[in-house]
């Protein structure tokens, strides 16, 4: 909403108040002023000129040499506008003027002819082209003949004005009108406001004899007022009216249309003017459209309607889409003499739906959507009729043609001052509250210590007690509210065990060298199920903005790989990222997918990079596996952890493992399939993904300390030769089983294949630690236990002992 302070001053006295101060007051008390626009742009030396003579420039086709009376002298100005003509009153920027674009006007010579200034278009004075009346859109602006050469042109054009741009919240539709703004500003400044005086003479002829009205859809159109004005002379509006409209962001057309727009801006009540003769039937019927019915709107676009769209018809065909836009067939034109003024209440939901469907949002539809003031529908029609009589020479037929089933009663709210104070934590006196409500022109009575309020219908946002609390508080000033803290049972607060453990996971992964990534949940169809740990239906958007973001992800890996590719493409060769986030699985009974929090990581490039001491190491499977193990160890879950070779789509078939926790599959770790790596322009890249929710919800035992050993342990190393296909995990399991209670620890410390080892075989070396917490072990005991291990290895894994 653009609010001209010059226009506003007609209703509330704001003379002498700096617009910036006014804007600050308005913002602090309820409506945010987004910007303050000085329409003069600081221009000077812009005056009225009279074109005494206008001849073609001998050297240039498109230029004219004009002799212009600018008051104190007649001076020569060259003008290239196509619509310049002798006898016009024009706007002249004299030498020394600075125009809004920064253009400085100087004396100049154009093709050998002196030019002492510039004859201006409205655009050159800083008015947006779309707001300039069509007649002047392509050339200079022509002023009315009664203007005086030499006179300052800025006040004439209403440019000695400051406009406040309001950023209105949806509840304050009352401020979508100058009167609404006047009520607000009047309350802020503790001033009364001057409402327009409606007073005009009606002709003897009755409107209802000239026009018939029927509403077939009273739910969507509970009130319709039509007035008829005849003997209209369609012409340009007076300058002041055009100026106000342009300041409000509305383009002037002709006096009839301008008046409807003026009243729309003044009252917030959209109006429409039909050419009575072009209606052709002397009848208006409001009904729902027929399915597929067509109408060509004012913007010359043919629109197809649905059966729930409300239309105004002449009894035969639509002449307007109710509350949205008029039809071309009944538009007021230069030859119009009789006008039907429509002022109506259209149901907000109906207008909202229709305006969305036909893709048209207008000043009218935005106001109907929010609900106009039921008590101003009639008055706005009268106001328009008055202005048509005054400004367009019209004769207003007596009375109105009305259908009215609209409820216009005010909401009654009863509230006690104590209630207000207890909710605010303040001690505002009842007198102060009454005075605030009085300033807001909210009729209030004090009855038995209660405030009994008749909420005015122009303030649709006042419905319940809390709305009144807000009115009192914002006018009293939010700065006056004290600062306190809630007095309640003190609660310890804190993270749940799950949340605390999630933080531990993040800290561990970051400590291990990984950066936290946050990627998008929405992905493409292609990526949506890739690497998913579970098979489940996907969750798809009804209306995605792009294919790339159309489905919710089921794995974190694809977007982590995208991020890796992004970094590698920018020559960051080593990337280590992790993410914790939800994946979305299938559709549950209540319509929501199952959201499961996962953790995933990606590694590529170097892991250790300390080149000058010869310590560099590329990432490999065991780096990622070590991270998984370290994380699980930190969570106390290492014992139940197992890795099993796995074949998974998109993963390297020989370098991928499923991860199990206590026998349940909880994740995967491995190398991305080389084909996939190539597609993404990646070198060897490793990933892991785990079901974090599963992991973090495992109950772990209390941490109990085991006594620090008092007796020495004894180590034995063995080297074995086994088939290449025998896994280290299998051997370790055999060793652990056979080692019994005394075997404290097993560690693989060497792995060898190649020379000196038979083809198809490999050599592994383990170090075993034997230990008894109660006493020093004897050699014999160790030998006995160790022998068992060796036998088991020979028998169960066909292992040969090496030298």
């Amino acid at each position, binding site marked *: 909403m653009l609010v001209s302070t010059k226009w506003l001053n007609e209703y509330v006295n704001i003379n002498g108040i700096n617009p910036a101060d006014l804007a600050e007051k308005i913002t602090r008390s309820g409506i945010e002023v987004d910007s303050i626009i000085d329409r003069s742009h600081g221009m000077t030396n812009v005056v009225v000129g009279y074109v005494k003579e206008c001849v073609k420039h001998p050297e240039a086709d498109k230029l004219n040499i004009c002799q212009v009376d600018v008051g104190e002298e007649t001076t020569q100005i060259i003008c290239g506008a196509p619509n310049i003509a002798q006898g016009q009153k024009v706007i002249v920027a004299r030498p020394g003027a600075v125009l809004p674009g920064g253009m400085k006007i100087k004396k100049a010579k154009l093709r050998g002819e002196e030019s002492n200034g510039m004859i201006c278009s409205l655009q050159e004075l800083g008015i947006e082209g779309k707001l300039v009346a069509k007649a002047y859109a392509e050339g200079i602006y022509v002023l009315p003949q009664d203007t005086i050469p030499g006179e300052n042109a800025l006040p004439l054009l209403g440019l000695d004005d400051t406009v406040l741009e309001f950023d209105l919240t949806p509840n304050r539709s009352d401020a979508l009108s100058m009167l609404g703004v006047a009520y607000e500003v009047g309350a802020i400044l503790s001033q009364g406001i001057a409402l327009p005086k409606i007073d005009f003479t009606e002709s003897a002829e009755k409107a209802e004899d000239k026009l018939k009205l029927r509403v077939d859809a009273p739910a969507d159109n509970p009130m319709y007022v039509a007035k008829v004005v005849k003997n209209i002379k369609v012409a340009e509006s007076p300058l002041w009216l055009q100026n106000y409209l342009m300041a409000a962001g509305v383009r002037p057309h002709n006096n009839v249309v301008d008046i409807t727009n003026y009243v729309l801006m003044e009252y917030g009540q959209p109006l429409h003017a039909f050419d009575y003769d072009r209606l052709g039937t002397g009848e208006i019927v409001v009904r729902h459209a027929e399915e597929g019915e067509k109408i060509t709107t004012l913007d010359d676009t043919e629109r197809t309607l649905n059966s729930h769209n409300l239309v105004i018809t002449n009894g035969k065909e639509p002449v307007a889409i109710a509350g949205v836009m008029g039809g071309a067939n009944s538009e007021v034109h230069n030859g119009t003499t009789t006008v039907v003024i429509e002022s109506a209440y259209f149901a907000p939901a109906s207008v909202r739906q229709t305006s969305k469907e036909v893709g048209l949002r207008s000043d009218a539809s935005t106001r109907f959507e929010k609900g106009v003031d039921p008590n101003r529908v009639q008055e706005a029609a009268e106001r328009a009729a008055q202005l048509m009589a005054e400004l367009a020479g019209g004769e207003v037929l007596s009375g109105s043609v009305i259908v009215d089933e609209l409820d216009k009663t005010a909401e009654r709210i009863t509230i006690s001052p104590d209630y207000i104070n207890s909710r605010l934590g303040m001690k505002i006196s009842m007198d102060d509250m009454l005075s605030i409500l009085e300033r807001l022109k909210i009729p209030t009575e004090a009855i038995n210590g209660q405030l009994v309020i008749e909420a005015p219908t122009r303030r649709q946002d006042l419905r319940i007690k809390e709305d009144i609390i807000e009115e009192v508080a914002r006018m009293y000033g939010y700065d006056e509210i004290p600062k306190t803290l809630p007095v309640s049972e003190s609660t310890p*607060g804190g993270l749940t065990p799950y949340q605390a453990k999630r933080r531990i996971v993040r800290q561990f992964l970051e400590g291990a060298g990984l950066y936290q990534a946050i990627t998008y949940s929405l992905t493409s169809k292609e990526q949506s199920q890739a690497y998913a740990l579970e098979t489940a239906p996907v969750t798809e958007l009804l209306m995605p903005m792009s294919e790339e973001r159309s489905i919710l992800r089921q794995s974190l890996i694809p977007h982590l790989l995208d991020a890796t590719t992004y970094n590698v493409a920018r020559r960051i060769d080593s*990337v280590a990222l992790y993410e914790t986030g939800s994946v979305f699985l299938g559709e549950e009974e209540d319509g929501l997918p199952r*959201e499961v929090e996962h953790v995933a990581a990606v590694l590529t490039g170097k892991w250790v990079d300390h080149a*000058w001491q010869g310590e560099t190491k590329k990432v490999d499977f065991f780096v990622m596996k070590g991270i998984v193990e370290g994380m699980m160890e930190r969570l106390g879950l290492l014992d139940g952890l197992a890795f099993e070779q796995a074949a998974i789509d998109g993963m390297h078939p020989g370098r991928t493992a499923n991860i199990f926790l206590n026998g349940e599959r909880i994740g995967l770790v491995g190398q991305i399939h080389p084909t996939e790596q190539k597609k993404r322009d990646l070198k060897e890249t490793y990933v892991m993904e785990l079901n974090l929710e599963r992991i973090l919800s495992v109950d772990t035992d209390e941490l109990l300390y085991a006594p620090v050993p008092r007796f020495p342990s004894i180590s034995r190393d063995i080297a074995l030769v086994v088939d290449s296909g025998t896994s280290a995990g299998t051997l370790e399991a055999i060793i652990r089983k056979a080692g019994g209670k005394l075997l404290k620890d097993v560690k693989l410390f060497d792995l060898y294949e190649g020379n000196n080892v038979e083809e198809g075989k490999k050599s592994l070396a383990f170090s075993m630690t034997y230990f008894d917490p109660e006493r020093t072990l004897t050699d014999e005991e160790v030998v006995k236990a160790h022998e068992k291990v060796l036998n088991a290895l020979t028998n169960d894994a066909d292992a040969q002992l090496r030298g």
Partner: protein
Amino acid sequence: MEQQLQQLKEEALTKIQDASTVKELNDVRVAYLGKKGPITDLLKGMGKLPAEERPKMGALVNVVREVVTESLEARMTLLEEEAINAQLAKEAIDVTLPGRPIQTGNHHPLTRVVEEIEDFFISMGYEIAEGPEVEKDYYNFEALNLPKGHPARDMQDSFYISEEVLLRTHTSPVQARTMEAKGGEAIKIICPGKVYRRDNDDATHSHQFTQIEGLVVGENIKMSDLKGTLDLFAKKMFGADREIRLRPSFFPFTEPSVEMDISCFKCGGDGCNVCKKTGWIEILGAGMVHPNVLQMAGYDPAAVTGFAFGMGPERIAMLKNGVEDIRHFYTNDVRFISQFHRSEA
């Protein structure tokens, strides 16, 4: 013999001084003091001396032996020291060479902000509540006083999955769910999480972003409690000398609703580019929980009241860390994320 002894002493002392390495010196030791050395020989030869001379000569030999030994030890200490110094000199390193990096990662900048906010409110007795990102229309809108057809639904165009299910447009449904679950009990929660809106991604919009909201419900919760809480929060997050101001605003789920500005932490209120010359920076929206919202969740608005507030970690990180483009948070460029490595107290 005495003369011979004297000569031997002089000779040994010269050799000791001439020895320039520990090894040479050891050779001298062996040569003069060893079992086959001249001094031992002299001692052995004492038997041939007359008995009365023996004690005198014995003493003399011992003196020479002591002198030589002493000199040798002294020389030895010196040479050893020199040898150590030479060794240490050889071991010297260039201390300006780079150290072995301890490679650690760090939180995403948004997590940093979220955890800072969480921790502040935890210290004030709040708990962290979380909820689904795919949400029912009921919890996302209706339970928050946004019935179907409400004009404010325009403000947040959403990603629908079906007529009744959508990606949540704010974290407020967690508030609605928590209230419903608590069945009338007092509540003090913070709800962080991802939210989604139908926006084209550009410098200031992201179809996925983060929100963190707070909710307090109980008996006698007042607007002044909201103001006091936000004031403490602003001082913790943005500096002890921050001032706050509340401006009237509108949210369907609160009444009255406010927006909170803080005095600019860059210019202190004088006006700069961060605060767009106003001295104030808009940080969050808040308000008293709308009675309809309480009622729908099973609370009696006559008996209990509440306040709620919500903010965007992206905006806070952008303000605090000078990030100019919201897309940086979602491209996961390591050169961006790694800049948030430093811990701040």
